[in-house]
C-alpha cells in the first residue's frame, strides 16, 4: 500500500521521532511510506480557537498535498479528527465547491494510526517488543471524535514483553484542550493534577497515548514534579523491536 504520512506540524517540530517510528513500523509491515514535503498543518488550532478565515488555506493545502494516496496516516487522534469532521465544514462555509469536492475525495483516505493498522491493514500484532510497565491514556478526540475504541489497547496487548496496566478514570480529559490550557489555565491545572495522580497510581514507567499534544501536557506536569514517569507515543512502542532496545 502506498501510504502518505501526515506527521502534523506539532510532531514535525517537536516529535519527529514519532514520525520515524510510524515510518519504520509501516515499512516493517511491508508498505511504502511517503512524506509529501508540501504538508504543514490541519488547521485545528485556528479552527478550534475561532479563527476560521485563517483555517481555510490549511484545509486547501491539505486536500491538495494528500490527494491520490491509498491512505493517509496521522499519528494524532485530534488532527485526524479535525480533517475528518471539520475540513468539510470549512469548505462549505466558504462556499468553495471545488475545495468541497477535493475534501470529500481525501477525507475517506485519512486514518489515525491505530485505525490504519487494525481496520485497513488488518494487523494487531505488529511484531513489537517493549519490556516495560505501560499505561495508556485514550485521548478525548481519539475516543469520542474518531471512536477508535479499544484498537490502541489491542495493539498494545499484542506487544511482547509489555506490562500493560489500566489507567483509572482513563476516559476523563487531561485538561489540555489546545488553547484552553492557556485561556483557562487554572481549570486545566486542576484537571491535569487528577490525571497525573491516576497515572502515578498505576506505577507505570511509561504513559502512552495516540496524541503527543496530550502527552506533552501530562508529561510536562509529570516532569515538573520529577515523578520519573516518561511519556511515549503509541507509534514508538509499536515500532520498538527486540533488536533495538534503546
Amino acid at each position, binding site marked *: 500500500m502506498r501510504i502518505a504520512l501526515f*506527521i502534523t*506540524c506539532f*510532531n*514535525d*517540530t*517537536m*516529535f*519527529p521521532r514519532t*514520525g*520515524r517510528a510510524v515510518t519504520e513500523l509501516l515499512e516493517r509491515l511491508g508498505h511504502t511510506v*511517503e*512524506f*509529501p*514535503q*508540501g*504538508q*504543514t498543518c490541519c488547521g485545528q*488550532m485556528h*479552527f*478550534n*480557537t*475561532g*479563527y*476560521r478565515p*485563517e483555517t481555510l*488555506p*490549511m484545509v486547501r*493545502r491539505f486536500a491538495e*498535498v494528500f490527494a491520490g494516496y491509498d491512505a493517509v496516516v496521522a499519528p494524532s487522534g485530534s488532527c485526524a479528527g479535525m480533517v475528518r469532521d471539520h475540513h468539510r465544514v470549512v469548505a462549505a462555509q466558504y462556499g468553495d465547491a471545488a475545495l468541497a469536492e477535493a475534501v470529500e475525495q481525501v477525507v475517506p483516505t485519512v486514518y489515525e494510526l491505530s485505525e490504519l493498522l487494525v481496520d485497513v491493514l488488518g494487523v494487531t500484532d505488529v511484531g513489537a517488543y517493549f519490556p516495560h510497565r505501560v499505561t495508556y491514556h485514550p485521548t*478525548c*478526540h481519539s*475516543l*469520542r*471524535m474518531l471512536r477508535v475504541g479499544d484498537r490502541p489497547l489491542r495493539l498494545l496487548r499484542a506487544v511482547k514483553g509489555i506490562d500493560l496496566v489500566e489507567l483509572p478514570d482513563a476516559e*476523563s*480529559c487531561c*485538561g*489540555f*484542550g*489546545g*488553547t*484552553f*490550557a*492557556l485561556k*483557562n*489555565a*487554572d*481549570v*486545566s*491545572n*486542576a*484537571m*491535569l493534577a487528577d490525571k497525573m495522580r491516576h497515572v502515578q497510581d498505576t506505577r507505570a514507567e511509561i504513559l502512552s497515548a495516540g496524541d503527543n499534544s496530550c502527552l*506533552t*501536557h501530562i*508529561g*510536562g*506536569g509529570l*516532569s*515538573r514534579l520529577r515523578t520519573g514517569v516518561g511519556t511515549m507515543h503509541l507509534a514508538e512502542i509499536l515500532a520498538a523491536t527486540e533488536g533495538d532496545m534503546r
Partner: protein
Amino acid sequence: MSGADNVVWLGTPAFPEAARSALADTRLRTNLRRATGTIRDKRLAVAAELEDWEELRETAATIKSHTLRHLDHHLLRLEKAVTAAGGVVHWAADAAEANRIVTYLVQQTGEDEVVKVKSMATQEIGLNEALADAGIRAYETDLAELIVQLGGDRPSHILVPAIHRGRSEIREIFRREMGEWGRPAPENLTDEPRDLAEAARLHLREKFLRAKVAVSGANFAAADTGTIAVVESEGNGRMCLTLPETLITVMGIEKVLPSFADLDVFLQLLPRSSTGERMNPYTSLWTGVTEGDGPQNFHLVLLDNGRTATLSDEVGRQALACIRCSACLNVCPVYERTGGHAYGSVYPGPIGAVLTPQLVGIENAASLPFASTLCGACYDACPVKINIPEVLVHLRAEAVEAKRRGRLLPTTEGLAMKAAGAVLGSPRRLAAVQRLAAVGARLVARDGRIGALPGPFAVWSGTRDTPVPARESLRAWWRRTRTPTSEDARTAAEGKARR
C-alpha cells in the same frame, strides 16, 4: 433588579477568573465531585439497561429538530388546544414582558404570595425578583431550590441548584432562615438528610395548604392535546399543580412537542439522563382546566427571550433541543471542578456555554464558548444528541468575529494567530521557524527541558516543563535520508513559482 433578565448575572467576571476563585474553594470541589460522580455512575447504569438507548436518542433528536423547524406551526396548534381545553395562552417576547404578564395575573387574583415549582424559565427571567418588586412573595418548593432561596444564593446546577452545598451548610441555612420565611426549623435539627427533608416538608406544607396561586415551568407541552407535563422527584410539584386555584405556567417556546405520543420517547430519556432513575417519582400531566379537579384558572405564558434569534442560527439552533436533563453538566470535567456559578448564568455547564451566548448575544458572554476542552463527554451523554463541541467552536468563531468587528487594531491573540497562520501556510516558512526554534530553545533549556516560558505561555510553564523542539524536524530528516518523490518535485516547483 426589576424583571432583570437572569440569563447572565451582571457583574460576574469572565469565566477564567470566576473559575479561579471557585477552584480555590475546596469544600465546593468536594461537594461537586461527590455529587456529580454519583449521578454519573447511576446514569450510565440505567442507560445501559435499555437496548434501544441509542435509537431513543436518535428519535428524540429527530423529533426535536423537526419540531424546531416548524416551531411556529406547532405553537399555534398548542395555543388552540390549550384554549379549547379552558386555558389562556399569553405570548411574551422577552423577560420583561413575561414578568409583566405573570405579575398582572397574580395581581388579578388579589393574592400577594405564590408557590413555585422548580423552573428554569422563571429563573431565566428573574420572576421572583420581579414579583417581589410588586410586593408578591414567591416561595420555592423544590428542596434544592428552597435551599438556594433561603440562602440568598444563586443556582449552580439546572437540576440540583444547591449542588454546591453540603448538608452541614444546609442545616445552617435552615436554622438561620426558615423562621424568616414561615415555619422555623426544629430546634434540634441535625444534618441527617432525613431530618433536613422533614424540616423542609413541615416548612413547605404550610405554604401548599395556604397557596391560592402557583407558578410552574414545563418540561413538555403536547401541541395536539394541549397537555402540559412537569416531571419531578419530590411531590412538591404535584402539590403546586393540584391544590391552588390558579396555575400560571411559564414555558420556553422550544418545549412544545408535536403530539402527546412523543412523550413516550422523552419520558424514557429524561429521568434516566437526569437523576439516573428509570422513572421519576412524579409526572404531572394536565390539559387546560377540569371542573372540580385542580386549578380552575390556567394560564400558559409562552416565552421567547432570545429563542427565535437562536433558531435562526443553523448550527447553534440545536441547543434549543435541550430537555434540561443536566447530564452534560454531570459528565463535564470543567463543570465538575468549577461548579455552576463560574459560568455567571442560570444555564451553567456545557449547555450553558452554548445556550447562554445565543440567548444574550455573543458579546455578552464571550468567554463561555471557550470554557471547554472540547473533550466531547457532553455530546456522548446528551439524550437529544446536541453536538455541543460543534456549537462551541461555531460560537468561538462568532466571538472572534465579534471582537474583530468591534476594534480597529487586532488583539494580541489575533496577531499571534495570523502569524501562526502565515507560518503554517507554507512548508518553507514552517521549516525556517523549526530551525530557529530548535536553536533558540536550546539556549533556554536545561536538561533538555524548558522550565519557564514568556508572555501568555507563562501560565502553561508554571506547572509544566516543555520539551525542546527536535534538532532535526521530520521533514528535514526525510529530505536528508530519503530520495524525493515526484510529488515533492512538484511542490518544490510550485513553491518557487509562488515566491
